[in-house]
């Protein structure tokens, strides 16, 4: 069954890629050629010409209407992206892969790839990149990095840091998995991306959608200038889509790596049950977590400040209604908006580029490296830990964050080895530590490349 699912997904990915190569590339080149030869070239196409008033009445009106329909303006790029959107929705509903994200993003892709008449730069105020359109207003929150901190507020208000407090050494697993970020950064540089772009791409390895969006809105937003005066590329769309795609595919990507890197004995390790955590500790954790991490990496303040703020609202016990709203209405509204606009930002003509392909390849590598680093670091820690207090390396993968999917993977893999060995609670520790870790890494990228 599991195998069949994996095959289904791989098949879908292969079909998409082939379709792309077959249709999109040539179409894209053709469009590019047109752009270069100027507006005259496109005048050869059958299209709406407002000045042509020779035809009269109903037929002219119908022709004008036709010029505005999607059928007249569609390209194979649009169709490919619509197919991608449908696949996202299918994966979300059929396999429940991160449905809260993939359904809005998938629908957003459909909405963003309805072909719109824009000959001669005409602005119908419909598309996400057209000034004055509703989608453009909602996209503001992505472009200016306003949505991600609000999502972190909600995540803070729903996260229980108990397992970290009771066993703080699990924090280090959350650190180890961030190695994926930095190695991907090097990889992106080697593939020719400019440093700020490479930094943003690296954060895909952090397996945190909001962090990835936040960093790319700061570093690779199409507006900043490089040292030589050329602007960075706008990679928010591809980076976000890559991050969420792989987060959704965590149950497909991680298990083989985990099995490869561990032997049966390691998979059977039982961890000590976590100790009880007092209410005071739960209140002090976000307060001092905020102060300590933000003093070290102030650039991570928008993310970590909000994360711990949300957690203070939750744990203080006197602001229940604020925490409740932060983790329900507020995060839901922002989720809807961010999913829709990130999805819609994949408009075929700006999304189907060589860069997007490279980013997807780098993203896959980043996830694999991060998982590997987490598992290997757990094994390394075991060398120094006393017998009876060892860490089951199957929770190492959880350090990438992708809350709570990667912790679920730990649980499932643990149960495969021993049906009575529940790793979920232990995996929650590195899981939330991974969120903190990648926010710190993001802060470092910002302070060097921002």
């Amino acid at each position, binding site marked *: 069954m599991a195998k069949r699912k994996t095959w289904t997904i791989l098949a879908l990915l292969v079909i998409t890629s082939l379709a792309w190569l077959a249709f999109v590339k040539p179409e894209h080149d053709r469009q590019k050629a047109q752009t270069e030869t100027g507006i005259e070239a496109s005048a050869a196409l059958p299209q709406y010409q407002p000045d042509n008033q020779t035809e009269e009445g109903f037929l002219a009106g119908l022709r004008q209407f036709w010029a505005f329909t999607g059928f007249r303006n569609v390209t194979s790029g649009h169709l490919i992206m619509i197919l991608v959107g449908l696949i996202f929705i299918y994966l979300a509903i059929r396999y429940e892969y991160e449905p809260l994200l993939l359904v809005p993003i998938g629908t957003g892709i459909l909405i963003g790839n309805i072909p719109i008449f824009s000959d001669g730069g005409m602005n119908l105020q419909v598309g996400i990149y057209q000034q004055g359109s509703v989608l453009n207003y909602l996209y503001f929150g992505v472009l200016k990095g306003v949505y991600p901190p609000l999502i972190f507020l909600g995540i803070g208000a729903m996260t*229980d840091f108990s397992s970290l407090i009771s066993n703080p050494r699990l924090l280090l697993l959350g650190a180890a998995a961030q190695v994926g970020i930095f190695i991907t950064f090097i990889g992106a540089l080697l593939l020719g991306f400019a440093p700020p772009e490479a930094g943003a791409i690296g954060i895909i390895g952090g397996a945190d959608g909001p962090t990835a969006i936040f960093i790319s809105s700061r570093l690779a937003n199409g507006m900043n200038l490089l040292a030589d005066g050329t602007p960075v590329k706008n990679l928010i769309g591809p980076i976000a889509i890559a991050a969420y795609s792989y987060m959704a595919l965590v149950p497909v990507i991680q298990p083989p790596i985990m099995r490869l890197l561990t032997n049966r004995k390691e998979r059977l390790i039982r961890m000590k*049950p976590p100790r009880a955590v007092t209410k005071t500790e739960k209140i002090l954790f976000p307060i001092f977590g905020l102060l300590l991490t933000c003093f070290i990496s102030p650039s991570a303040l928008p993310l970590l400040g909000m994360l711990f703020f949300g957690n203070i609202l939750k744990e203080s016990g006197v602001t229940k209604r604020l925490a409740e709203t932060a983790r329900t209405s507020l995060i839901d509204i922002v989720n809807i908006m961010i999913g829709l606009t990130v999805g819609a930002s994949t408009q075929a003509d700006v999304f189907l580029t060589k860069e997007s392909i490279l980013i997807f390849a780098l993203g896959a590598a980043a996830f694999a490296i991060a998982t590997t680093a987490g598992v290997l670091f757990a094994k390394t820690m075991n060398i120094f830990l006393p017998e009876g207090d060892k860490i089951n390396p199957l929770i190492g993968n959880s350090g990438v964050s992708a809350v709570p999917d990667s912790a679920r993977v730990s649980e499932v893999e643990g149960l495969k080895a021993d049906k009575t060995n529940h790793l979920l609670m232990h995996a929650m520790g590195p899981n939330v530590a991974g969120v903190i870790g990648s926010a710190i890494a993001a802060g*470092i990228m910002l302070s060097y490349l921002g």
Partner: protein
Amino acid sequence: MHTLLLAGAAAGLDPLAWTIVVVGISIVFLSLLVVYFFFRYILTYILNFKLKSFARKKGIDPAEAQTARTIQSGEVNAAIAMALYQYFNELHDVESGVITIKRVSRNYSPWSSKLYNMNNL
């Protein structure tokens, strides 16, 4: 501004790219290590101290007072069982993405009492 430092990076690989990697990884570890030490040693020390002074006041031998480190409770195991139960039975908590250890027994706490506060003004 300081992207200047990496100006040539796109071509070969500026040594500073490696610096970012090395410094970056170090700092991530360092930060989480600092948090680890703070909660593992400093906070535990403070909380133990409070527990002991409390014990002293009550005339209990401080040595007998449980330290914060070693408090073990059935509650937590119950909580884990509960969490797993919920997880595999898909109660609302899991669906909505809330990840919690629920304390199965709720004890009276003076903190949660407004009345306490009001009557003793």
